[in-house]
């Protein structure tokens, strides 16, 4: 379970998070939606410790996120970055096997490569792709490799940051399906950030709408259309008029 309690974060005068509360149950897939610059990525980075919250608490499986053994804490996580964030200097299989070849439980090169190839296959890529470098791959393939890397060490929690950004609708659908399948198959807790409503419907068990630094609405994905929340309605229908100020 991930428990986010009254988290605040500001960058100078810009108060990005102003008291975010959220609970994600074990094995649940939570999708966070909201306009650009509403702090979705910042919230995710706070959970991972890439940013430190100014106030509030983040508790992951009973442990404070900013205390204790960082390596052990981060070993529970896998993350797919918006730009895939693959390491240019390493081949695809080395990217996927990066965590497997490091740390106290590191595997031999052969074993790590075997697992990497298996994970690549799981995300629909042929073993030959493993020998290529990230720059040789299309955007969709890079996302798949990023996904393979995120699940390589079989983490308990997986974060997805804008998983379909920059992809065509068909490839977006493929990535959404893969994410859903993998999360269910692994029984992992998932937290996804997206603007893409098709992703929301494909991936989410629950949805949280972030705006003005707080969660404006949260509930099951089935209740999205009937929420009656003016922020959510405006976001879902893409209207310029409403409580969310649209800059023209």
């Amino acid at each position, binding site marked *: 379970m991930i428990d986010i309690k009254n988290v605040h974060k500001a960058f100078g005068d810009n108060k990005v998070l102003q008291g975010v509360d959220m609970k994600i149950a074990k094995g649940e897939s939570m999708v966070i939606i909201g306009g650009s610059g509403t702090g979705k990525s910042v919230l995710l*980075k706070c959970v991972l410790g890439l940013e430190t919250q100014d106030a509030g608490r983040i508790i992951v499986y009973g442990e404070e996120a900013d205390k204790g053994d960082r390596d052990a804490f*981060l070993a529970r996580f896998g*993350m797919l970055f*918006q730009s895939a*964030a693959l390491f*240019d200097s390493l081949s695809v299989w080395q990217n996927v096997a990066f*965590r497997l070849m490091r740390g106290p439980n590191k595997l031999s090169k052969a074993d790590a490569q075997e697992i990497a190839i298996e994970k690549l296959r799981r995300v629909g890529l042929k073993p030959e792709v493993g020998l290529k470098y990230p720059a040789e791959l299309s955007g969709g393939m890079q996302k798949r490799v990023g996904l393979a890397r995120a699940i390589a060490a079989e983490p308990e929690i997986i974060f997805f940051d804008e998983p379909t950004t920059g992809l065509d609708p068909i490839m977006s659908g493929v990535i959404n399906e893969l994410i859903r399948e993998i999360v269910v198959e692994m029984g992992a807790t998932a937290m996804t950030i997206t603007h893409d409503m098709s992703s929301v419907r494909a991936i989410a068990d629950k949805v949280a709408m972030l705006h003005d630094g707080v969660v404006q609405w949260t509930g099951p994905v089935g209740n999205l259309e009937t929420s009656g929340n003016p922020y959510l309605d405006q976001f879902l229908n893409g209207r310029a008029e409403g409580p969310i100020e649209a800059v023209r």
Partner: protein
Amino acid sequence: MSMVSGFLASIGAAVLAFCATVGRIFIFAASAVSHMLRPPFYGRELLAQVMQIGFYSLPVVGLTALFTGAALALQIYSGGARFSAESVVPSIVAIGMVRELGPVLGGLMVAGRVSSSIAAELGTMRVTEQIDALVTLSTNPMKYLVAPRILAATLAMPVLVAVGDTIGIMGGYLVGTGRLGFNSSGYIKNTVDFLEVGDVTSGLAKAAVFGFIIALMGCYHGYNSGRGAQGVGRATINAVVSASVMILAANYVLTEAFF
């Protein structure tokens, strides 16, 4: 009065900003050094960086040293002729190259090549979230990216400068024997006789410090790069400029120390 106070305030703000930057660089350097001393060690990364920083800089440093040594021989001959002291050419070329020009010019050339490359690489990794990705993969970027680069530069620069010094002396020798009429064995004897161990060690110590500065500036500016292409570009410029200025400043301090 308000203009004066505004002027003073702007000077104060600049001084404070400078002090803050120096403090950040010091903390960054201390953190990098502490990661060099604590496991895990990334030997493969270190080796790759030694190749990248040391071996691949050899042509640049070698050519710089060759032409500098050759020009130095001509200049010293020209100056020495005014006092009928043309015979000092071999010894002054050797001492000048080993104590001063080898480390400083080598350092500046490597700063241009390596500092910019490190800053651009780490800056791009920062912008494309690769550094964040390292953290989520339980790998400390200071240990995996920064420490091997700084250690590699610190170890590689003295070797690079030693080779550069030799090539520079060779440049002087070629001009001395080919153009200025020196006898080959006499030139070499003069070079060896006047060169002391302290000359060599002080030059190599300078080179190690310059290597540390070059990689530190590249890593610091790249690691803290701003967003987008502009941020990476600025990081690259700042890395080269600050490394070059710091090399010249450190050169004076070290020369005083070895004087």
